[in-house]
């Protein structure tokens, strides 16, 4: 093997394993060793399920030895944000309060589905408390750090998911995305990230945040890994009331189909303001790569982001109301204060915000009648420093925590599928671009991402390699 085992993408490991060039145990041990060596620096894992991983790996080795057909991700190591239930592990959701909960009794469906596809679970990943975060900081479990520059934030709230995948501590990680929590760490850590159509990947067996907006999805160093993960996880689950059926054919089937015939526009207006030169330069590069010549504005995006903000505050507050009353002191103060404010907001605001959501969806879906995809920045800047509280956007000093997701929030507001693709900024740090498609069209978003990857415009890899 020409590279360290931990530098290979999941689909590559599955291929090498299937050929018999490496055992699943070797793959697993290499990743466990890397975690032991690097986790203290990057703050990615909060629990390591080593015994389970080695047992799964041994079973896969036996399966291969017996000549049984191997599933598509056989041998690929993955890890999950610690709001996803792992049997026998307490589902922390980044909190101190949840440490008092009993361990989960069963795995979440997304874990069962990835294991059915042959992937090997390595453990649970760090996150911003109760997912109300865009930075990757966690005052209880320690901060996640960006493997490209340990002094910088990983982004959040799926901070550990970003850090682990970028540091080569797992080939695929699962995060959650409510307002941007997959796309922000994907952007800052130089990864591909998929926030699928709302309901496409089941959320059952996960600790919630905002039921109206919560998504579960993968981060990885290759587009094919996103596609394989999506195909493994997508599909109905009776325990998730918003769950929808999987697409009629696997998204991997059209991954190499190129961009011919696709109508793509760059988003202007709101998405062309309040960003750094690096953010817009990344979109320039992607636009050239996809031969995009049109710029178009979505209507009322500022209002969409505002409505998403209000729904998040109120639904988050409703979820945590009892905890706010009885254990306020055990919260991250920044999360606590936002949730307390949310608990005070008039209910009519949340209803009006939901009405506006339906209105905004109709307006945007109308634009998809004449376009297949739109592109926009994923984050307004490259990774800020870990403890940085404010940044300058368009001459205004703004809080980092609330504004890293200003480009992601209006899109997840209406549940559209998005692939975040990693580019490289002039300052040497990663920065992402969003490829946004119509509901149910993850295939198109992934196909565009794959074109950019194949042409060397979007690139990911283990940091420092």
């Amino acid at each position, binding site marked *: 093997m020409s590279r360290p085992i931990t530098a290979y993408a999941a689909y590559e490991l599955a291929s090498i394993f299937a050929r018999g060039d490496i055992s699943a145990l070797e793959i697993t041990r290499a990743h466990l060793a890397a975690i032991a060596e690097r986790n203290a620096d990057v703050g990615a894992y909060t629990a390591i399920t080593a015994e389970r991983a080695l047992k799964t790996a041994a079973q896969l080795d036996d399966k291969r030895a017996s000549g049984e057909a191997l599933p598509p991700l056989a041998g690929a190591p993955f890890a999950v944000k610690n709001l996803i239930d792992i049997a026998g592990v307490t589902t922390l959701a980044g909190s101190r309060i949840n440490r008092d909960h009993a361990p989960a009794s069963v795995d979440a469906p997304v874990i069962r589905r990835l294991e059915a596809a042959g992937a090997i679970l390595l453990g649970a990943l760090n996150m911003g408390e109760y997912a109300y975060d865009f930075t990757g900081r966690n005052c209880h479990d320690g901060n996640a750090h960006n493997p490209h520059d340990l002094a910088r934030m990983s982004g959040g709230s799926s901070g550990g998911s970003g850090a682990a995948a970028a540091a080569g501590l797992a080939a695929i990680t699962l995060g959650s995305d409510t307002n941007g929590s997959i796309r922000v760490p994907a952007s800052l850590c130089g990864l591909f990230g998929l926030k699928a159509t*709302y*309901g496409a990947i089941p959320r059952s067996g996960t600790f919630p945040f905002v039921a*109206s907006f919560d998504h579960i999805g993968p981060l990885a160093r290759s587009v094919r890994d996103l596609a394989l993960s999506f195909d493994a996880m997508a599909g*109905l689950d009776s325990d998730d*009331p*918003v*769950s*929808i059926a999987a697409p009629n054919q696997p998204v991997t089937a059209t991954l190499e189909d190129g961009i011919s015939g696709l109508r793509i526009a760059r988003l202007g207006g709101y998405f062309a303001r309040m960003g750094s030169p690096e953010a817009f330069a990344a979109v320039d590069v992607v636009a050239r790569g996809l031969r995009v010549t049109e710029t178009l504005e979505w209507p*009322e995006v*500022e*209002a*969409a*982001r*505002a*409505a998403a*903000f*209000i729904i998040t*505050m109120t639904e988050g507050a409703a979820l945590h109301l009892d905890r*706010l*009353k009885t254990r*306020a002191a055990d919260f991250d*103060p*920044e999360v*606590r*204060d*936002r949730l*307390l*404010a*949310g*608990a*005070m*907001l008039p209910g009519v*605001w949340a*209803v*009006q*915000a*939901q*009405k*506006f*959501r*339906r*209105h905004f*969806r109709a307006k945007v879906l109308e634009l998809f009648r004449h376009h297949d995809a739109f592109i926009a920045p994923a984050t307004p800047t490259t990774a800020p420093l870990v403890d940085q509280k404010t940044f300058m956007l368009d001459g205004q000093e703004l809080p980092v925590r*609330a504004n890293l997701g200003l480009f992601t929030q209006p899109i997840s507001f*209406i*549940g559209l599928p998005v692939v975040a693709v990693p580019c490289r900024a002039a300052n040497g740090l990663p920065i992402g671009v969003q490829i946004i498609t119509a*509901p149910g069209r993850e295939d198109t978003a992934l196909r565009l991402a794959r074109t950019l990857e194949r042409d060397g415009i979007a690139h990911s890899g283990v940091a420092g390699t």
Partner: protein
Amino acid sequence: MRLPSAAKISAFAQSASDALDLPLPETYRPGVEANLSVAFRLSAHFLDSDLGDEAEPAPVFHAMSGSSRQEQP
């Protein structure tokens, strides 16, 4: 919609805390009031949208169990 003054937001926070039995010691007050200010400012973007009386909030509830899956928010 006119944005309330800092004093009004502070009074609002106190009243809400008292009426809703939410904790609001002095150490929490600056953060809570700052977040309320942001919420008031942002809500102005959509509260005055004239969506019509027939506008349905998303998601739509269906009385029959299971049929809510047909509705996308």
